[in-house]
């Protein structure tokens, strides 16, 4: 088993996280990320009877909320916590390409 991730794997994770990394960081993360994954892999050794245990709190049914309106924030409060705003809109740098 390799003791580090490939350069491509690290760069792919960086791309998903939208972060830029330097050459020295890349080499460091190849090793560190691999160590984290190996530690997490230990969880796989635990024997569980039911897959559900790994999903969510299944022992108790979720609480449902009635469809009734409650208090909301004012637009002023909303934009106060944003680094930049334009009128009542929160302003961020344009992101090209992806549209969901």
């Amino acid at each position, binding site marked *: 088993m390799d003791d580090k991730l490939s350069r491509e794997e690290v760069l792919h994770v960086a791309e998903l996280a939208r972060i830029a990394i330097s050459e020295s960081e890349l080499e460091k993360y190849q090793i560190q990320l691999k160590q984290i994954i190996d530690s997490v892999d230990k969880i796989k050794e635990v024997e569980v009877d039911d897959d559900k245990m790994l999903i969510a709190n299944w022992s108790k049914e979720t609480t449902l*909320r009635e469809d009734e309106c409650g208090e909301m924030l004012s637009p002023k409060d909303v934009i106060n916590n944003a680094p930049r705003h334009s009128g009542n*809109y929160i302003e961020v740098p344009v992101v090209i390409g992806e549209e*969901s």
Partner: protein
Amino acid sequence: MSNYIPTIGVEVHVELKTNTKIFSNSTNGYGEMANSLTNVIDLGYPGTLPTLNKEVLNLAIKAATVLNCKIRREMHFDRKNYFYPDNSKNYQITQSRTPIGYDGYVEIEVNGVKKRIEIEEMHIEEDTCKSTHRGTKTLLDFNRAGVPLIEIVTKPCMASGEEAKAYLEKLRELLFYSDISDCKIEEGSMRADANVSIRKNESDPFGTKAEIKNIGSITNVGISIEKEIERQSKLYDNGETFKPQTRRYDDKIGDTVLMRVKETGNDYRYFPEPDIPFVYVTDEMIERVVATIPMLPDERRKLYIEKGVPEVNANKIVQNRSLSDYFNELLEENTNFKIASNLLLGDIAAYLNKEEKLITETTLTKDRFLELIKNMEDNTLTSKNLKDILNKILEDTSSISDIIKSSGIENITDDSAIRDVVRKVIEANPGSVEDYKTGHDRAIKFLMGQVMKESKGSANPKMAMDILVEELQ
């Protein structure tokens, strides 16, 4: 261009008609001031927790039922992780592993051929905030963040833009009639994406897929799919290949344009949402929801046609929910349904459009409408006369017969009165009478016109024609 076999699958997002958002109690609304319909949950503040809206579950059960889906009894939510400013939590809460509905279908008809469009699955998820791109800036409005959605995914089972269009029309009709969504494409409460690929033979594997996103109308879904099939065919004809990609339909140029090339598919790193425990759907919940489903469009059409309504009229009535609900109230009555449908779709619909009113906002109660139909059926009222008194019929509360009397336009059904008019016309138009007698059939139309003119439109047309023919002998 060679012939290829197209394969099309459609994904539709529909906003649910609830009072509040899916995981918070802020208002689910459209067209309000930017960032005025939010709270800390919608904005994804640290430490906030989602609680599922009961009505979202009810509407999703309802949608699964009208789309003939099987309903999952035990489910959970998943996180779909991605970094993009339209979602401040950096994940969207959705259902990946346990969609509430699966294995459903919708029946469509294209050029007289019926086909089942199979639904792979439908799941519940939250909408993202709305982003508007302005030069180097993107403006965010979180009013839409957390609006409940269902996403409905078909199998790749459609073969043309026409089929996709028919499917979307059917879907919209079903969801609208069951009060699940208002399905307004122009306001984004219904959004469609289409996956298109082509191949040479049935036995070949599926071709490379292009996804057409955010198409602005059902008509454009049909057009954009046909355009995409054409584009791919030309490429293959020239021996070219292409990468899986996302395209959008540009209404101005009438064609699809490239948005981005998908590399190896999206790496969303789904994992179960730990903040929402399991959701259980019981028989009792399903029964309660099913009881609220009104009569659906196909059943309405069938009933109307059985009652003697022409098919084209039946289809038109069903396109208008309030007219159709009104028409349903008549079904128990013994009346002439063909005349009823003609009245509703003709002068009455024109009035409603002009006044921007619903039929229920007029004074035309069921009893008055039945009286109106009767007056039309026995020719007491002609369609020409109806136009003159229509406003009174729809705005007054007096009986139809009183309106006819007071307007002085009562249809002359008195034989001798009509005969007098006919004789007068024959005497005044010897030329036309001669024409008729020498075999010019058109002359009778002219004479009939004169009779109606002379009687100021009040002669019963059928009687007048009979008497005219008689007098011309």
